[in-house]
């Protein structure tokens, strides 16, 4: 048993840190967030060359065949850099869904181009009800054609294909297929654009096996949590640096315990989120019996932590933290979007309650009666 990164995992993480620092510094993040799709073809090609776009997918489709832990490490570094654009939606959401639910044929058609960097994709899950429960999807398929509207679809405008969670299964539609209308939704996170996608008799192909949807969703959730951890780490680093240099009353403000203790809490929240994220990634990878609860635990903790870490970071920066020029609000915006995505802390607390309180017989068997 070893709850630390292996040498190769550490190398992957270090390389990703360097790669994003070089290829996507914060100036580039700011440039891309002002564009329509926050997508940059050159950056994407370089990421594909690194193997990032196929990191967890089987080698037969051109992927690297690594595990969920490696995906989490890569996402952590993407989050640290605040990587804009469709990487998360293409790889963690759509890619893992195709891999889990697609037939061999479909994987060749849709997954292989993701691995080699040729295609972007996304998943359309939410509708007007904003329910994260796939069973509540209203959009329906009739003789191979989809009709209905999806909301909050990340990165839809740059996607080549869109996976649609519908009432009667999971479908994949070409983004340029007839009857699709994609409209931007103006939202808080400037680096991950959201869209409404309307389908009107749009031809779509059904994925082979919808029963694997929960597994794919959990992988995407863990990837998101890892990305949140990276954002928290960056917020902490920026804040500690500021607290060491900003002077008031003749001293660095980091000398004052009121400031120092906030930084200590940011550290505690970041590290605890990281433990939970790594554990959940490992549990999913190994299909451990507590994987479902581990994913919710990670999302519960990090959803609250990424908000409080952001709050503390901005507070410590004082007026500067409230300016557009300071980078913290970019992380703060992403943190709020991520907090909501796939269910916030309250949503996952209820999910965990169903797993461990209602099905509590197994848990409470070990407890003694009075």
């Amino acid at each position: 048993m070893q709850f630390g990164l292996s040498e190769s995992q550490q190398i992957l993480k270090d390389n990703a840190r360097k790669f994003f620092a070089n290829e996507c510094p914060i100036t580039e993040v700011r440039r891309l967030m002002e564009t329509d799709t926050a997508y940059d073809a050159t950056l994407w090609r370089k990421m594909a060359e690194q193997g990032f776009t196929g990191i967890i997918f089987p080698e037969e489709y051109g992927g690297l065949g690594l595990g969920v832990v490696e995906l989490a490490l890569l996402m952590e570094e993407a989050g640290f850099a605040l990587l804009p654009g469709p990487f998360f939606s293409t790889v963690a959401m759509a890619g893992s869904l195709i891999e889990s639910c697609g037939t061999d044929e479909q994987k060749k058609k849709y997954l292989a181009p993701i691995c080699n960097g040729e295609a972007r994709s996304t998943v359309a899950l939410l509708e007007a009800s904003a329910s994260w429960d796939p069973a509540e999807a209203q959009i329906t398929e009739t003789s191979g054609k989809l009709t209905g509207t999806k909301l909050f679809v990340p990165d839809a405008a740059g996607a080549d294909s869109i996976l649609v969670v519908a009432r009667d299964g999971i479908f994949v539609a070409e983004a340029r297929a007839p009857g699709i209308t994609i409209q931007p939704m103006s939202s808080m996170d400037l680096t991950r654009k959201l869209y409404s996608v309307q389908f009107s008799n749009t031809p779509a192909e059904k994925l082979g096996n919808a029963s694997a949807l929960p597994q794919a969703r959990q992988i995407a959730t863990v990837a998101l949590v890892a990305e949140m951890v990276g954002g928290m780490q960056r917020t902490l680093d920026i804040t500690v640096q500021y607290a060491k240099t900003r002077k008031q009353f003749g001293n660095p403000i980091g000398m004052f315990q009121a400031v120092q203790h906030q930084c200590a809490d940011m550290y505690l929240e970041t590290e605890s989120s990281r433990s939970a994220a790594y554990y959940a990634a490992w549990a999913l990878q190994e299909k451990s019996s507590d994987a479902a609860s581990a994913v919710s635990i990670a999302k519960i903790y990090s959803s609250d932590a990424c908000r409080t870490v952001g709050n503390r970071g901005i507070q410590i920066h004082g007026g500067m933290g409230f300016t557009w020029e300071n980078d913290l609000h970019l992380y703060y915006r992403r943190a709020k979007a991520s907090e909501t995505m796939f269910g916030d802390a309250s949503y996952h607390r209820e999910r965990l309650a169903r797993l461990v309180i209602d099905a509590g017989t197994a848990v409470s068997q070990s407890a003694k009666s009075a």
Partner: protein
Amino acid sequence: MDLNLTTDELKFRDELRAWLKANAPKDWDEFREESMEKRFEYLRRWQRKLFEGGWAGISWPKAYGGRGASLMEQVIFWQEMARADAPPMANVLGLGLIGPTIIAFGTEAQKKRFLPKILSAEEIWCQGFSEPDAGSDLANLRCEGRLDGDHYVVNGQKVWNSYGWAADWCELVVRTDPSVAKHKGITMLLVDMKSKGVEVRPLRQMTGETEFNEIFFHDVRVPVENVVGKVNEGWSAAIGTLMHERGTFGAGLQIIYQRNMNRLIELSHRMQRNGRPAAEDPVVRQKLAQCYAEIEIMRMNQMRAFSRINATGVPGPEGSIQKIFWSELNQRFQQVAQEVLGPYGQLESGDDHAIDKGAWSYGYLRTRGNTIEAGTSEVQRNIIGHFVLGLPKSY
């Protein structure tokens, strides 16, 4: 990263699991209303049994009665103890803090003399660190150790000494050189509590118990061979102990937390709220799930920390997050328990209507001390701020 057990770890776990199934006592909860002394004797017998079975001091060297296994097996040990719902062990400070300090800083003779009896609970240990004027500012301690031939003569007072009333030995820090900077003239001594001039006085806590003590030393003679580490360099040994206290000590608490959580879930199905079981109340569910999540994260943090210690050899200052986490979580948990139990939560031991013999009112009051004992939350945050994050020292 691989949380799967290795073949050796698996073998260890299976053996331990079988042993616990056959040997772990089932009647610990029934001792809830017995005297502190009787409860302690119970845990002492249980530790003795673990020792005889070869299960005390998992990661301690074989030569001194330990098992010579890795820290990861130590983690597995706590997990299995929790799973078996086994009672904790008696010699808490000896096992968690003082033994590891002797292993790291002690002489060969000290290791041979003291370690096996810590493991068997034959000798119970307490710590003599805090003083009336040296709490968070521990290095300000004044209890004096004056060299007289081949003995140190100790004079002074210590306070907040858990298990002082039960202790056979004390890990004591004294000032041996008042002429140098406060961190420099400190020496660590191992003191026989039966020595002439040692006086233990009970301190009654807000729970009504007298877990803590004051210890007075009047011309107590301690042989020089009982110095741990070097004379006047006791601060580093003391910090070693405190790192263990913060970093690894919490692992043993997992048993208690998981037991409590399981029990509270069970009670939440029974207690009524708004005409239905509390477990069906959406607000209670949120709070229970939050506690459950945090107890799991405490375990994950500890597993990560242990892996790091396993690789580097010593706990570092980042262990302070464990201390903050377990202490504050325990307080939040007890508050949730109070909400689940409603008016029953306040009933104390001895009341006919009390649930679990008053364990919950006791727990609520006792955990209030968690963020103070073993270094306050404020001191832990100072440590993280300065030693981990590199912020300027605030004091």
